[in-house]
């Protein structure tokens, strides 16, 4: 398997996700600079976290207009697996590959902490190693992670099983207290209708580190490696 990681000026989780692919999925990733107009031969594309173009104007808006994103959009239409994490999720909503948008956290401040997620949909290429509704510890770090969409979209997401992850408490309840940023329905990650494009705010690549005793993200990468191999 081969993974391509898109790098924008201001990306800062590109190395982290590369490390997780290398160490956990045992895949050597390729870094693709945003000005390139061709995506190298690969099985999956990752749009990593960070502050692409400083997150100026709107998070992800300038990156979404980069040359490479036109290629990513083309690939997505072919059903190609594409994952956007954190800023990557914001970029994917800006390109309209995913519905809805991410607005400012309702607490109006940046939040970095470990959250509990429920694996709502475990029948995807990135979540099949988890149980349905398994509760996993995955960190978040963002200022604009508050998922917002109109009722229609939310209904569709729910109806088509497009919600991949939700913030929950230790008992798996989708409570307000467990919702770190005000996301509608506690949404932490969604997929498109076809199921090939995932966007999520939490960082699975930050939970593959034995030393910090956080490793619930490993199954995410193992799922990908096993399914796309």
């Amino acid at each position, binding site marked *: 398997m081969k993974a391509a990681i898109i790098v924008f000026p*201001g990306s800062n989780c590109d190395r982290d996700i590369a490390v*997780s692919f290398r160490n956990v999925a045992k895949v050597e990733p390729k870094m693709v600079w945003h000005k390139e107009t061709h995506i190298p031969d690969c099985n999956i594309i990752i749009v990593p976290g960070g502050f692409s173009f*400083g997150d100026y104007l709107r998070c992800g808006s300038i990156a979404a207009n980069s040359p490479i994103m036109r290629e990513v959009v083309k690939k997505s239409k072919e059903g190609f697996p594409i994952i956007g994490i954190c800023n990557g999720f914001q970029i994917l909503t800006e390109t309209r590959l995913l519905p809805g948008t991410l607005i400012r956290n309702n607490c109006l401040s940046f*939040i*970095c902490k470990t959250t509990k997620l429920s694996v709502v949909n475990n029948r995807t290429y990135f979540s099949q190693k988890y149980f349905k509704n398994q509760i996993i510890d995955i960190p978040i770090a963002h200022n604009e992670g508050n998922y917002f969409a109109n009722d229609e979209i939310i209904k569709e997401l729910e109806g088509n099983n497009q919600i991949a992850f939700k913030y929950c408490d230790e008992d798996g309840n989708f409570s307000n207290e467990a919702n770190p940023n005000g996301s509608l329905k506690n949404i932490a990650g969604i997929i498109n209708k076809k199921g090939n494009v995932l966007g999520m705010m939490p960082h699975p690549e930050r939970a593959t580190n034995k030393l910090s005793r956080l490793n619930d993200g490993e199954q995410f990468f193992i799922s990908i490696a096993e399914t796309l191999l």
Partner: protein
Amino acid sequence: MNKISKELVEEHGINEDEYKFILSSLKREPTFTELGIFSAMWSEHCSYKSSKFWLNKLPTKNENVIQGPGENAGIINIGDGFAAVFKMESHNHPSFIEPYQGAATGVGGILRDVFTMGARPVALMNSLRFGETSHNKTRHLLNGVVSGIGGYGNCIGVPTVGGEVEFNSSYNDNILVNAMCVGVAKIDKIFYSKASGVGNLVVYVGSKTGRDGIHGATMASSEFDDSSDEKRPTVQVGDPFSEKLLLEACLELMKEDVIIAIQDMGAAGLTSSSVEMAGKGNLGIEIDLDYVPCREINMSAYEIMLSESQERMLMIIEPKKEDIAKKIFEKWELDFSVIGILNDSKRLVIKRNKEIKAEIDIDILEKGAPSYQRPYKIINMKDCNIKESNLSKEPPLTILKQLVYSPNLSSRKWVWEQYDHMVMTDTVLNPGGDAAIIRIHDTNKGLAITTDSTPRYCFANPYEGGKQAVAEAWRNLITVGSRPIAITDCLNFGNPEKEEIMGQFAAATQGMAHACEELDFPVVSGNVSLYNETNGKGINPTPAIGGVGVIDNLDIFSTHNFKREGDNIFVIGKTLGSINQSIYATEILQNNNGCPPKVNLADEKNNGKAIQILIKNKIIDTSHDISDGGLLVALAEMALSGNIGFELLLEKEFSSHRFLFGEDQSRYIITLQNHKIDEAMLLLNEKRIQYHNLGKTKGAKLVLNEEEISLKELKNLHESWFDNYLSGKEN
């Protein structure tokens, strides 16, 4: 043409004698641009004219030090071919004027000091001091500073892993914002600022120059008064995105064999960077300002030379390598411009519009810089004895509840959750512990980092306070299982022209020097911030210490959270019951008198070495030093972070307030599993270290004799103060 009037000289912070010296060395009147250059180079901030004498007494070497003070940052050898590069710096005045941008650009500046030496920044820390919580500006300043630090660090993608926050009325109109950065470099890939090679090019890279921060360096060194609002437009705005590009571009270029010397443009911008680089190389430098990329039109030589626009660097490269360098900066869409050339004249020559605007011997600027041995008077508080009858009548756990919900002892979670402390995924120990631990990428080695200072001790007895700050940093590095190597410092004091302030500085640095010497813990970099006063009232003397230690094998380190029920809790080190200057005395008794606890450096070393052995031999995995708040607060922190309670049945002498809340130094709390007790006792007895068995870890509550409190209630108190304060529920 500006005529140099007496007022103009004064406005530039240059005194009569200094000006006379300028006239006699130039043998003519300086130009306006030259006056600006002198003023910047001779400001307190750049010249250390009041502090140099005392700073020279600090030890700066041990077998691990590669580079001590004098460069952009200090460098230590951490083994396996790696070096740690670190420094701390203040951005106090700008942060008071505009907290978000002031703090943000403070972070930006310290990052540049580190990556200019070829190191990738791997951790940020910050040491913050605000006025009392009821002061009308505190909430606004706290909010702005914390989000500014986060705004910059989060964007550039360097984890902010720890620091300190203190509230005290002495900072009401003069907050302290000290930022520290630690980077890692390969030992054979370190870059310095010493220029060399006549004919080599002087290259400007980074963002464009605007009229930002003109007079910043003189502002940072002059006392605040009520008219300081008028100086506002000089505040710089940070652009962390450009800094990220600059960081990547510099590191990319550093892989090539191109850079001969490099230095960031910090305080006094182009002036100090060009003078320092040429000065170190004993060369001359000629700069044509027409080639400096400017953001605004019609900028004068004076403005360009003194601008403190952020995110800029100055490099020396060989002419034939210009293209390689240019290509990299173009890729990162940053300005790149050859602005000058090195020669052997030993003079600084500045041109603008084909005219020479300044021409000064670099020796006059550097060696001729004033240095003062200012008169000083050391004032120590008299010792006092708080009478038994004046102690609080409340039972200990009731007092504990008040303490964990107080501004200075409550959980700092609200702060560090606004900082990305996990990016780069090498954070092994998150904020909240005694020191942060960062893994050296792709290895099993770690760095431990802490910042410490106890200004109320320094005010009461500056010598003891200086000593204590260094010792506490050392202790925090010991308790996580690292080998403390060296420190950086940020010395924040009042107006040095006052004898008693100069006395604080003299005594505190001597105390520091003494502790550094005894603990083999030298100073490798640092910063001095003087004139921290408002309308004549000085801050508490605040020597902030940033310590760095090495963990050779990350399979073995220690943290302060309780790990298991049934462990035996021991306090290590002598408890005398010193409550003067303790948080108990100041917060509960409202008593600010007396001498602070004294650090016995021999005990400090002996106890620390013992803890080091206990951790290394895997006898303990849980340890915490005892600092602010004393024994019971330390125990509560261990219980809260481990989510395991304790049960202590203490005889009378050990359940007194003096015992539970005193702040005797050089002490630790450890927990021992039953089968490890003998081994530990053997070592402690052999080293003649006092210890005392307090009780056991147990259950979900804290039990102290007949009193108890649930962990849940305590946690709630501990973690809610900040939220309540910021939402206005608490003052």
